[in-house]
């Protein structure tokens, strides 16, 4: 059974726990992403966690706002500011996720436009591994479901894999992600550098271009 709880900001210290019907669709998407990780990891050992982290964050991100609106709110010139919105819950198979932002601002002029500062997501991958993703700044459009991670993305997995992208854009409706500012993945198994990455078909097809260099370390 999947459930979600919002732990509100320090200001009010309350706890809300309820399931929103619309959540089922997003969590199914998040579950599919995580299952793909296992297969993808088979094809290219170092890639799986990168796709999971970015695609799964987007699957749970839309839930952050309608609920978090009850917590830690303040109205500023920037718009509706939520301090430290935090969302935790479980994906299928009892795997925990938690998405936190140090600050989220919902524009009053364009309410679908959300600016996130200090976005941090922690995802349990189920086989004893977990992935942590951090982005200094991101914007999310709830209409187009486009997550723009303009201030870089750092992804670390407990299996020792690390990925860094200068920027990335995730198009959740198309199941697509792109980054043309270079990507670097390092792991005990090897590393990949490329000028550009496109993740297509929900992760079934991944294209590196603008120059690719891969090192596969000997199996230990």
């Amino acid at each position: 059974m999947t459930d979600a709880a919002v732990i509100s900001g320090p200001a009010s210290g309350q706890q809300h726990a309820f399931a929103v019907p619309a959540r089922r669709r997003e969590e199914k998407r998040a579950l599919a992403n995580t299952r793909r990780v296992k297969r993808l990891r088979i094809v290219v050992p170092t890639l799986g966690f990168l796709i999971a982290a970015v695609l799964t964050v987007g699957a749970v991100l839309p839930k952050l706002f309608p609920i978090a609106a009850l917590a830690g709110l303040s109205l500023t010139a920037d718009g509706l500011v939520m301090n430290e919105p935090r969302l935790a819950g479980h994906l299928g198979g009892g795997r925990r996720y938690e998405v936190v932002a140090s600050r989220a601002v919902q524009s009053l002029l364009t309410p679908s436009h959300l600016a996130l500062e200090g976005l941090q997501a922690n995802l349990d991958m189920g086989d004893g591994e977990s992935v942590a993703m951090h982005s200094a700044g991101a914007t999310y459009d709830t209409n187009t479901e486009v997550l723009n991670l303009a201030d870089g993305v750092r992804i670390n997995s407990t299996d020792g894999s690390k990925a860094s992208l200068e920027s990335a854009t995730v198009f959740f409706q198309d199941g697509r992600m792109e980054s043309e500012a270079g990507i670097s993945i390092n792991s005990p198994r090897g590393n990949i550098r490329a000028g550009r990455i496109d993740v297509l078909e929900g992760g079934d097809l991944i294209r590196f271009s603008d120059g690719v260099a891969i090192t596969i370390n000997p199996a230990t």
Partner: protein
Amino acid sequence: QQLQTGFADFGQDQSTPIEIEADALEVQDKKNTAVFTGNVTVRQGNAALQTSRLTVVYSQSALPSPDKATAATTSGKAPSTPGDQRISRLEATGEVLLESDGQTATGNDGVIDFDTNTLALNGNVTLTQGDNVVTGDKLTVDLNTGIARVQSTGRVRVLLSPGGNRPN
């Protein structure tokens, strides 16, 4: 024509990293393949492969069954990426150049099959060992022994330089 070459165990050194460079790479999860395109070079130790397109085919299941798995892994038959992901074939198309221990082989396209442990080059094949040159239509190398066989619909041509060591 049958020759002893230095291509034994080509690409199967389990102790040295594999370096791959290309213009682009496409990983197709459903087909278990990764396709490198554009100025593709693969290096491992003193073995190298250059081509314009390289398809890396991973084996369907990680390994068929525990005992075969252990045998295949310990016998080092195929380069396995860590995590037991076995590469079963490398398919190179578009002007292939193989180098190993100072010997080179070129052809239009080629396949390294780690399941059968064979290397095959097809079309305009030239095998060069020092000053000796062998040309034909098809080159097959048994990667267990390094023994190469060159075949041709026309005539296999062998150019031996005087005083050079004869291909035995």
